[in-house]
């Protein structure tokens, strides 16, 4: 059995806005094991990106981590000083975003930028990294002679994302966080990028957190999946278990709502819409939309509990109170 690389405990993040306090994460708990591919799934605004930014300690004003621990490789990142964090970010934990171009400098050639990031990690000059740049580009199936001399705007979305992957993995990070890496891409390019990520991560044994709203992408890539709803973690299980035996009413609803090629059975959406996190529903945040809601659901937040080995769910249907 692998040990834990990352344990997030009772993480609570808020944003202070003119509309009021956004309760973005409400006591989120999860553990990512070494070499695991951990998926975070949920609809827009449920807190996926905030979770990943919190792990990187990149929550900035008007946001704040108000409670919780983020234990990475034995250290609590919530208590870690900024200069120590700088040696962790990009080295031990790397990140890939949905919009790769936003993380590249528009006026510098791609090769130079890759060189810069390698040089920073290796503590050498960019010149000394020339071979590394070529190697890194080849690893993501790009031709170094051609691509190194391009500016970011000359890249297609797929090429830009390959470069982000190349840079993120160049430091051989213990943890790679990929936040919707293919959501902006076409389906054929998405498939190429996911295959590439799959190959590289298998080869390098990185631990990965993959954030996506696409259950198909998660089903194909992840070992374990956490489902989030409105700032809360509602269910966690091994991928096969989650799809075969979903327990939380929201997870069940989500699985019935996704159209699948080859399945023309009637779809059922979830009535209502995602709540505003300035005024989240009391108790279980899903209760206004839940077909199984009971009296207790609007007053008491259900705790995350292990129902079957490795299968955790936060729902009163499975509490001791109800047998």
């Amino acid at each position, binding site marked *: 059995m692998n040990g834990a690389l990352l344990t997030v405990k009772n993480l609570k993040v808020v944003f202070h806005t003119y509309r009021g306090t956004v309760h973005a994460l409400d006591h989120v708990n999860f553990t990512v094991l070494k070499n695991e591919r951990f998926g975070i799934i949920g*609809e*827009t605004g449920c807190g996926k990106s905030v979770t990943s930014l919190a792990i990187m300690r990149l929550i900035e004003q008007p946001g704040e981590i108000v409670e919780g621990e983020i234990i990475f490789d034995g250290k609590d990142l919530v208590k870690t000083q900024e200069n120590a964090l700088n040696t962790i970010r990009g080295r031990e934990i790397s990140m890939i975003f949905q919009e790769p171009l936003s993380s590249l400098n528009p006026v510098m050639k791609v090769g130079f930028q890759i060189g810069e990031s390698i040089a920073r990690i290796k503590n050498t000059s960019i010149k000394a990294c020339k071979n590394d740049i070529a190697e890194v580009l080849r690893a993501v199936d790009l031709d170094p002679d051609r691509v190194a001399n391009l500016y970011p705007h000359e890249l*297609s979305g*797929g*090429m830009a994302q390959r470069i982000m992957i190349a840079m993120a993995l160049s430091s051989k990070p213990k943890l790679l966080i990929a936040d919707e890496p293919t959501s902006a891409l*076409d*389906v*054929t*390019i*998405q*498939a*190429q990028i*996911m*295959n590439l990520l799959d190959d590289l991560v298998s080869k390098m044994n990185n631990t990965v957190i993959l954030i996506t*709203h*696409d*259950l*198909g*992408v998660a*089903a*194909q890539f992840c070992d374990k999946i956490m489902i989030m709803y409105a700032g809360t973690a509602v269910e966690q299980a091994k*991928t*096969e278990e989650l*799809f075969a035996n979903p327990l939380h009413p929201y997870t069940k*609803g*989500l*699985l*019935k*709502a*996704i*159209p*699948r*090629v*080859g*399945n*023309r059975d*009637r*779809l*059922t*959406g*979830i*009535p209502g*819409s*995602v709540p505003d996190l300035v005024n989240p529903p009391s108790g279980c945040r899903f209760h206004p939309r839940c077909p199984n809601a009971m009296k207790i659901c609007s007053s008491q937040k259900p705790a995350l509990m292990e129902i079957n080995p490795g299968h955790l769910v936060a729902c009163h249907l499975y509490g001791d109170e109800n047998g």
Partner: protein
Amino acid sequence: MKMDEILIEIQNLKKYFPLKRGIFSKGLYVHAVDDVSIQIPPRRIFSIVGESGSGKTTFGRTILRLIEPTSGKIIYKGRNIMNLNQKEMMTFRKKMQIVFQDPYNSLHPRRLVKDIIGEGLSIHEKISSGQILERVKEILKKVGLNEDHMFRYPHEFSGGQRQRIAMARALILNPEFIVLDEPTSALDVSVQATIVDLLIELKNTFSLTYLFITHNLAVVDYISDFVAVMYLGQIVEMGSKDDIFNSPSHPYTYALLSAIPDPDPKKKRSRTIPRGEIPSAVNPPEGCRFHPRCPYAKEICKRSEPEIVEVSKGHLVKCHFPLR
């Protein structure tokens, strides 16, 4: 198909946009829609599917002459609407509506819902504001909203509700034909299913015909009667839903289908996905436009553009070597 079984027919439609960027771009064109022909029978859902930039939106808008085509014919109920002047076009506009992808930008932010929905009526029909209000009330119910919603602004609604408002706006003029341009792509999955079902229900209630534009093949499989697959401005394969999903014959269709990640962890995804990326529509590849990415490409594919062949009744494929 017999003539009276077709509501709208598009013949050899082309839309080339002049390239404006740069000093060397004179005389260069984006081949956004390049010789597309389709026929849509009444009360059916005809889907256009393709990756971004394949020309879906341009095609949809050109059909309604919201964008003027470069050439081609648009025949609505036997009449070529390309020759109509502004005024004659007005009567057709009522019959042909469009709903856009983005429910956040397509509704005027500072107008009340009743005015947004009623606008078309006040332009096209001479009726009192009281009558307009009655019609708005009626249509709101049909799209699953209620009259309380009339006096609110778009920002007070969720994405799914806004798409209901957009449908109400299109429906109030009693149209026959609606172009739906990615109507559910901006919505969350839990809401998407509800809106897709609403679209089907409205189609049945009002005897509508849809041109449904999307990049989501799973939604296409769920909703369509007929499907056309677009690649770089051209239709590469077209047929009934079963033709496309059960016996895809164009290598690109096959590739698209195998690239979709299956939301079932037990079915491992295919590793045979097309290499490379979609080329520019300014200089589309010679011969078959898919040849640089096609695993089956032969010499002839680089030189000669494939004809459209009928591989089975109504199942059309633009390929020298259709798959069986």
